[in-house]
């Protein structure tokens, strides 16, 4: 990771206004979004949007033709091109032919994508952004930091300074007054401009219409007052039919700003009258800029379903901390990373893709059903394929891929860590490793790994057998979780098998884009885990469970390895997370929780993979309540804790503040216990509380329940 990139992250993290305004918006967003969607079947709606946009992405050529024909029949002129340069030249030509000296613009991401403003300015044409946020950004000579809220990183003081300079008058920081100043200043520009440039949120092939959403009303003026209107539209904005407007119109304002509808929606079909009675010169530019290539890519085609609501930014635990400038490009956040990789180039996304912690929040709220985390992994995979893994990665993977070496390294570490370990935690590390323990203590590596403990535990011989997949953290750090799982399963009449040849689940390699390494891990594990008479493969680590259930298959599919797929599917069919199995065993009466206990209050942290990939949410809560614990929900219980596997090692500066928010939310629940289903989250949260000296018990659900069965 380059120094400049780290510096830009640190700059953003230390900008109190950015973290303040963005953080507050992001924290309020989830609840207001849910309220805006009241009475609407979100799943049905987004399925409809995904279908109609996916259809459009598969038929770009046909729809563009149809749109062109229909719009031109109504007097518009349609220009199609793949090249950003040709878009700029075309607009300049129209401007020159009509003696245009000044242009007013309403928001258009496509125009930002092709850096239109500086180009026109260089050619002597003055350009005014009229969206208030965009205008502020233009006056400040900056880039938007958010697709919908471009100036969210700026304070009213900074805005007052900018406006004061613009109008030559010392203005106060009174926001309504500043807005009035913008209104009157821009009103003159509207009335004098010879050309209006807009974007569009949709282009309807069936009718040749374009659809524009705004709140400020600037697009109405841009499309009404100047005699020339140029609309720059990315071809992914095409939809087939007029009725396709409704689902997008239903989702876009709700997902973007939690509004039922923006103040203004304009549907423009063909030429309309000007104020002098003439007909408006309407130019519609359908810009490709690699979108057709994207549509032909089986993985990335779905990114064209995006309706640019930016909800993926609003729910992102990383974006709410660093904002958009860190992304360095026009499109920011999760979807922005993907668009940058295409509209710019893959290499440009190298650093920003590493910001993704893979929590899956964005995927859950995306109104176009885009699997953003998966596409970011795909970018990682392609980067590693093109450029190879980094040296550190190579070193780590060469160990991880050799189980014996990997395990003996961990055993050695348990001895060498001794000077630093106390009560099972490492609080300080020397020299270059010190950053790792700056914001949280790390667990000490167990003196006796679970695989050795397992052999010493005497189990009854039972008819039903299940394989236990420990995963690295339970095997080498939290052995107690493994013991709890065993003891509970034994009580249910299940004997636990522990194949010694099981190794790392491959998640670290996979999340770094090293799919070949992940595939080797998968093969080793499949060989070890498929034991004939064991019906279940149980894991108490959700990252491992996700690997067993989904990612072995996905990795083989991505690599085109068909040979291992049947066995990977077999593993997937048998794999289950501990809470789901436990709930089932309790429901079937094979396990009974002790009755009438008052075990005290607890709060529950939903780990990303548990909640959003395995869809496990209620099970552990119900089990704990049945065992006599009283649940107190915390704020944002399903927000990431900042662990993200090796993420917390690569980007500790981001991991730490995400953890701080989580710790605060747990503390504010005012309970003595926080339970969770993931040893990775235990490591992060327990380490965080240890570091700050808070005496809240951080514990895996299995361990918390262990003593509560009959």
């Amino acid at each position, binding site marked *: 990771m380059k120094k400049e990139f780290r510096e830009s992250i640190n700059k953003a993290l230390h900008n109190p206004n950015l973290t303040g305004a963005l953080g507050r918006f992001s924290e309020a967003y989830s609840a207001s979004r849910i309220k805006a969607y009241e009475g609407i079947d979100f799943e049905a709606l987004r399925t409809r949007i995904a279908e109609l946009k996916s259809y459009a992405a598969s038929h770009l050529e046909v729809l563009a033709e149809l749109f062109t024909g229909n719009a031109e029949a109504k007097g518009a002129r349609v220009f199609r091109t793949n090249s950003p340069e040709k878009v700029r030249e075309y607009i300049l030509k129209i401007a020159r032919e009509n003696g245009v000296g000044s242009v007013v613009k309403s928001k258009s991401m496509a125009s930002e994508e092709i850096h239109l403003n500086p180009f026109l300015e260089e050619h002597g044409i003055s350009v005014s952004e009229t969206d208030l946020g965009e205008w502020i950004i233009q006056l400040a000579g900056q880039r938007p930091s958010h697709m919908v809220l471009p100036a969210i990183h700026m304070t009213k003081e900074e805005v007052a300074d900018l406006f004061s300079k613009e109008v030559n008058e010392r203005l106060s920081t009174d926001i309504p007054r500043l*807005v009035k100043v913008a209104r009157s200043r821009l009103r003159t520009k509207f009335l004098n401009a010879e050309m209006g440039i807009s974007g569009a949120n949709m282009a309807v092939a069936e009718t040749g219409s374009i659809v524009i959403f705004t709140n400020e009303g600037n697009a109405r003026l841009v499309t009404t007052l100047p005699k020339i209107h140029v609309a720059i539209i990315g071809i992914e904005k095409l939809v087939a039919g007029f009725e396709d407007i409704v689902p997008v119109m*239903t989702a876009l304002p709700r997902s973007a700003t939690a509004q039922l509808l923006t103040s203004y929606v304009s549907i423009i079909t063909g030429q309309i*009258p000007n104020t002098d009675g003439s007909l408006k010169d309407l130019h519609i530019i359908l810009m490709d800029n690699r979108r057709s290539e994207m549509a032909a890519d089986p993985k990335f085609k779905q990114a064209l379903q995006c309706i640019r609501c930016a909800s993926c930014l609003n729910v992102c635990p990383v974006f709410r901390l660093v904002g958009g400038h860190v992304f360095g490009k026009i499109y920011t956040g999760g979807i922005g990373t993907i668009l940058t990789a295409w509209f710019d180039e893959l290499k440009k996304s190298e650093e920003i893709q590493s910001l993704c912690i893979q929590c899956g929040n964005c995927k859950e709220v995306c109104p176009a059903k885009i699997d953003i985390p998966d596409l970011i992994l795909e970018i990682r995979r392609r980067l590693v394929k093109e450029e190879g893994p980094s040296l550190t990665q190579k070193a780590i993977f060469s160990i991880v891929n050799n189980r014996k070496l990997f395990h003996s390294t961990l055993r050695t570490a348990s001895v060498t860590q001794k000077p630093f370990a106390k009560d099972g935690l490492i609080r300080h590390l020397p020299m270059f490793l010190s950053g790792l323990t700056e914001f949280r203590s790390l667990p000490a590596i167990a003196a006796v790994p679970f695989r050795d403990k397992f052999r010493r535990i005497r189990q009854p011989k039972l008819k039903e057998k299940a394989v236990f997949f420990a995963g690295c953290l339970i095997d080498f750090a939290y052995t107690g979780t493994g013991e709890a799982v065993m003891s509970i399963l034994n009580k249910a009449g299940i004997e636990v098998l522990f194949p010694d040849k099981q190794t790392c689940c491959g998640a670290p390699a996979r999340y770094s884009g090293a799919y070949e390494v992940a595939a080797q891990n998968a093969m080793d594990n499949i060989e070890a885990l498929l034991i004939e008479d064991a019906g279940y493969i149980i894991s108490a680590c959700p990252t491992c469970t996700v690997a067993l259930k989904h990612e072995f298959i996905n990795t083989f599919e991505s690599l085109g390895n068909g040979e291992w797929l049947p066995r990977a599917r077999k593993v997937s069919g048998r794999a289950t997370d501990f809470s789901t199995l436990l709930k089932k065993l309790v429901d079937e009466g094979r396990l009974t929780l002790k009755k009438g206990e008052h075990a005290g209050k607890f709060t529950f942290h939903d780990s990303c993979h548990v909640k959003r990939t395995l869809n496990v949410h209620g099970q552990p809560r119900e089990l704990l309540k049945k065992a006599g614990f009283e649940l107190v929900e915390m704020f944002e219980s399903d927000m990431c804790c900042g662990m993200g596997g090796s993420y917390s090692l690569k980007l500790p500066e981001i991991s730490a503040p995400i953890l701080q928010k989580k710790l605060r939310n747990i503390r504010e629940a005012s309970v003595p216990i926080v339970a969770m289903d993931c040893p990775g989250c235990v490591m992060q949260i327990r380490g965080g509380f240890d570091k700050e000296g808070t005496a809240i018990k951080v514990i895996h659900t299995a361990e918390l329940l262990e003593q509560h069965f009959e």
Partner: protein
Amino acid sequence: MRAEAVNSEVHRFSSGGAALDFILQFLRKEGITDNPGAYAVWADCRFLDRFDRKQLSEKVPGLKFDFSRETAAESRIGITQMDWAIANTGSLAQNATPVEQRLASSLPLIHIALVATDKLVAGMPSLLTKINPTEIGYMAMITGPSRTADIERVLTIGVHGPERLIIIFVDEPGEQMKAANR
């Protein structure tokens, strides 16, 4: 209710005459005079058919029916008749192809929007099935006044468009108000 939730002001009158009285009184109260910045513009509409425009202009000097964009830009109030009202979002919709409709509803500080009560539809889907987009050059939907939250996320009303939207439902005569504009 939905319209008021987005800061619109909603009134309902049983007759066109009552609505007109309210409007004239409102224009006077808002200080409409025949001076730049204090005009009111009223875009051509069916509602006006039964009234004598000249008389109205005499009653409120500064109220104009034939206007340029310069006049609209110097107006405090703009009045238009909308074609539909949409219940579930509190929106109004209008075929705004004639340019004066757009000028009167976007340039002044206050927009008075007349709409026939029987033109209220349940939601956007039912509206979009009623219209033929190829016959409408500029379909305008309006939901509350102009708004922004671009400075520190503080909601501020009235950026480029009107800062007040006053919706007036008129119950009768239905037939006369059916098609808002010619």
